[in-house]
């Protein structure tokens, strides 16, 4: 059975179905069902996945697509791709459930699935809604776009053909562009255009590199496994690396290519922001790990000092700027820039701990930041404001909301026992093995994280309740919202205590990556050092 193609086909067909059904409610339900089917299929794939297999890509399918250009429809997964696909498959149903009313534009805490306590608070919110009239948007389009995006997210991680990867890399901008631009906040069209143009510009530079790779490699194919080691000339490698890396650095985003992210994430509807920061941006760091390192190993080593410096600057800069934010969503976006610094650091440390830690970080960050964005989204949905100053003492009126916010936040600052701790620790460890100074400076990011998360929590959730907040206009999480946050909190806790199954899947893939990079001057030395230490 072509598992991966099925994984992509189901959401695409689902999107068609969603756009065809009559009622909006039916469309939402259908979208949720489709995304759950995708999740079930992903679980089936994960169960069948053999981490110890010697084949590089499992579930591989290769068909000619455009023989004229040597382009294949080639998909397959290794451990790294699998966990990222799983991340997407888990997040999408959660996002669909969370966005249940985002596109309605009703402004009320309307009925919907699992609504239990809305009858009274609905009154209090009517006035809020009339203050910021939300125009009615097409609900069906929103959910159809979500499903199309899901198909493309799966495709971009599963692609084993460089050209196919590029196609998904660029094409996935379009649904996200429409989600931000049509359903976002007041500055949405500015944010959407900025997002699209930054990504497109990076992507087009990558296109030049993709073309040049094909011409230089002279293999008449874009299949990734065959292109490994095809470009030997160091100077050529450096140029091609630059083309790929800038695209990924814009996408991830690394400092100084990050300026689009706070705008896009702050203006996007909460659900789209989760997918944007949680999954789309991971394509950048995934691309660095998969394509930059393996296709251009010499250039990667050459540029490592530069990338490490950018990463460390990003870690510290993102954290400091996050502290200064007055808008919740922008704050979370800046924390992500800091976290992407960690991921890039792990990737370019080129150690096993670093690579595995970075991959795990991509997954964990998706869950913890996703939870933060969603809970912030629930708050904003209730009060119509994302300014931190508009809140205070929420703990007293909405204890569950505040509690889950705290857990998600603590995961964001890498508290031991929560998932991000494992990955952050591994990244820092992996980096320390080779770049001790970078690891030490990077560690300050952990301290700053405590400042920005706890301070935000303190300002919004604790202290005297803001006089404009009443249990009427800020009710606690309803059943639907609890179903949204529950799984995320569970995943954060489980991965915090039992990361081993994940690590077992990721480790062999990272080993294969590093061995094909051929980090000769480093790997044995590290192994020796470890051996000596034991």
């Amino acid at each position: 059975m072509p598992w991966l193609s099925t994984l992509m086909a189901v959401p695409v067909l689902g999107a068609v179905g969603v756009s065809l059904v009559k009622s909006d409610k039916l469309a939402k339900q259908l979208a949720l069902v489709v995304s759950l089917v995708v999740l079930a299929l992903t679980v089936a794939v994960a169960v069948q996945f053999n981490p110890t297999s010697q084949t590089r890509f499992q579930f591989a399918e290769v068909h000619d697509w455009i023989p004229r250009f040597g382009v294949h429809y080639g998909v397959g997964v290794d451990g790294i791709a699998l966990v990222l696909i799983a991340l997407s498959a888990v997040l999408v149903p959660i996002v669909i459930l969370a966005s249940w009313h985002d596109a309605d534009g009703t402004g009320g805490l309307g009925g919907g699935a699992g609504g239990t306590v809305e009858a009274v608070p609905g009154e209090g919110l009517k006035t809020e809604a009339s203050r910021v009239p939300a125009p009615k948007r097409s609900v069906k389009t929103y959910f159809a776009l979500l499903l199309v995006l899901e198909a493309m997210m799966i495709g971009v991680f599963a692609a084993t053909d460089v050209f196919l990867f590029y196609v998904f890399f660029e094409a996935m901008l379009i649904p996200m562009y429409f989600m931000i631009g049509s359903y976002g906040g007041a500055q949405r069209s500015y944010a959407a255009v900025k997002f699209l143009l930054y990504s497109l510009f990076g992507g087009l530079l990558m296109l030049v590199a993709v073309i040049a790779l094909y011409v230089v490699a002279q293999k008449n194919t874009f299949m990734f496994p065959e292109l490994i080691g095809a470009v030997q000339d160091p100077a050529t490698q450096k140029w091609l690396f630059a083309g790929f890396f800038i695209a990924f650095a814009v996408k991830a985003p690394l400092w100084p290519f990050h300026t689009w992210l706070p705008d896009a994430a702050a203006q996007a509807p909460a659900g789209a922001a989760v997918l944007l920061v949680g999954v789309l941006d991971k394509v950048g760091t995934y691309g660095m790990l998969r394509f930059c390192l393996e296709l251009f190993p010499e250039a990667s080593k050459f540029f490592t000092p530069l990338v490490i410096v950018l990463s460390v600057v990003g870690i510290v800069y993102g954290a400091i700027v996050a502290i200064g934010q007055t808008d919740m969503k922008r704050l979370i976006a800046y924390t992500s820039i800091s976290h992407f610094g960690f991921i890039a650091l792990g990737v370019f440390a080129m150690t096993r701990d670093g690579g595995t830690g970075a991959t795990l970080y991509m997954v964990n960050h998706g869950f913890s930041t996703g939870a933060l964005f969603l809970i912030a989204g629930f708050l904003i949905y209730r009060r119509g404001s994302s300014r931190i100053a508009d809140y205070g003492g929420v703990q007293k009126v909405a204890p569950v909301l505040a509690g889950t916010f705290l857990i998600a936040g603590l995961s964001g600052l890498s508290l031991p026992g929560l998932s991000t701790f494992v990955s952050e620790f591994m990244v820092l460890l992996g980096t320390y093995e080779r770049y001790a100074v970078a690891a030490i400076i990077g560690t300050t990011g952990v301290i700053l994280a405590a400042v920005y998360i706890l301070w935000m929590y303190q300002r919004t959730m604790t202290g005297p309740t803001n006089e404009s907040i009443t249990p009427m206009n800020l009710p606690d999480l309803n059943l639907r919202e609890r179903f949204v946050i529950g799984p995320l909190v569970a995943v954060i806790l489980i991965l915090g205590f039992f990361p081993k199954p994940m690590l077992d899947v990721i480790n062999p893939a990272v080993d294969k990556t590093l061995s094909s990079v051929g980090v000769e001057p480093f790997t044995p030395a590290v192994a020796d050092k470890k051996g000596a230490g034991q």
Partner: protein
Amino acid sequence: MKDTIQAPTIEYALLLPMLLVFGAAVVGVLVEAFAPRHLRKSIHMPLTLLSLLGAFVMTVLVARGGLPDAAAAMGAVAVDGPALFIWGIILILALVSTLLINDEEQFVAQAAAVPGSPDEEEAVLSGYAQTEVYPLLLFSVGGMLLFASANDLLVMFVGLEVMSLPLYLLCGLARRRRLLSQEASVKYFLLGSFSSAFFLYGMALIYGYAKSVDLAAINTALTAGGPETLLLIGTAMLGIGLFFKIGAAPFQAWKPDVYQGAPTAVTALMASTVLVAAFGAVLRVFWVALGGLQWNWEPIMWGVAIITMIVGAVLAITQTEIKRMLAYSSIAHAGFLLTGVVAIGTFEQNSQALSGILFYLAAYGFTTVGAFAVVTMVRDAGGEAGHLSRWAGLGKRSPVLAGIFAFFLLAFAGIPLTSGFFGKYAVFSAAVAGGALPLVVVGVVTSAIAAFFYVRVIVLMFFNEPSADGPSIAVPTVGTSAVVALAAAATVVLGVFPQPVLDLADQAASALFIR
């Protein structure tokens, strides 16, 4: 002398597509002269469509019958792979544009009536129609076929003129904003005449150098050597004439004015087919006749391509009129195509570049016709709602139409899974292989700039609220809907399964041009 008069051999079978179009055009003139007014349109329409369709079928038949290895009609017309491919594109695009021209609202009732005069009012009231549009279109299409397949400069010039003169007239026939239309017509005519003069002068100088106007003979003469001055000045002048036709900077100034003023159906025809025909001619002149002079013209062509891309992309940003914006976009695309023209090298390299250009032309042509077809449908009281601000919120009023237009714009921008992406990819990859990497870098940077103004229109349509007195969407005629549907289908299919058309372009380009 025994053989005083030798009848020229004409390969009628090969030339049949062209002859059919010209024949239908002549019949069209006779219809204008003899058929009663109320019948004319109902005769013209099937005549035009059938002749274009017939010509297309014949082109396919000729292509299937195998490519000839020598030029037809005593070496005047080269019916080779690229020519047949270009004929095919031109004929289909012309056929599609004809469906748009069928729209009553497009053309003036009586072109000779002074705008705003009682004469005009009378003409409108009595339901006159300039049905000459149809034969003019056929003549122009016939000229394009000849222009793109001419194997000597003189025939090429004849093709150029036969193509252009009817277009000058057609531009002046818009029903609304007639002064703008007439201004466009005069501008196009004057500038076009200048460029034709340059072409003619260049041809004369080249003749002085090579003692022949035959493309292959000119190439042979290059190896023999001769008065270089004549050759270089002649090349420059030929280049000016051709660059004018494709709208390459710095000869692009006419394009926005003409595209804006002309009836949109005619703009659709011009924007798609003229570019195709002109690139056929550009390739013939620079690759076949002047291929040996590559080292001399290549730097100039690099410069022209770079300026064209930059001018097209940057000036498009400042436009507030949809047709002008599409005109500048067309200029930028001409620049992208030129990167393929400079990618000349080995035989294999040339055929790859040629195939890329052919595919690009096909992809771009369809998208362009579709985009202009949508423009004809967005109307307000004064005719088409050209100003971009009038397009605000269109996505809310008519989501399907706006969605299709957005899709065309994304194709222009070269987003993957649209035809535009593979077109760009085919040309750029040929250019990289041909060593024009810096040109490609400029190409992608300008593509990013160009993406900005395409995306801006999408922002307007989808992310802005519609104004209360916004334009209405005309109920499309069957023809217009067919055009939009066909163009959208072509843009999708070429964007997802480009292989069959790429194969066709490869076959067409496999033997390059016959000399």
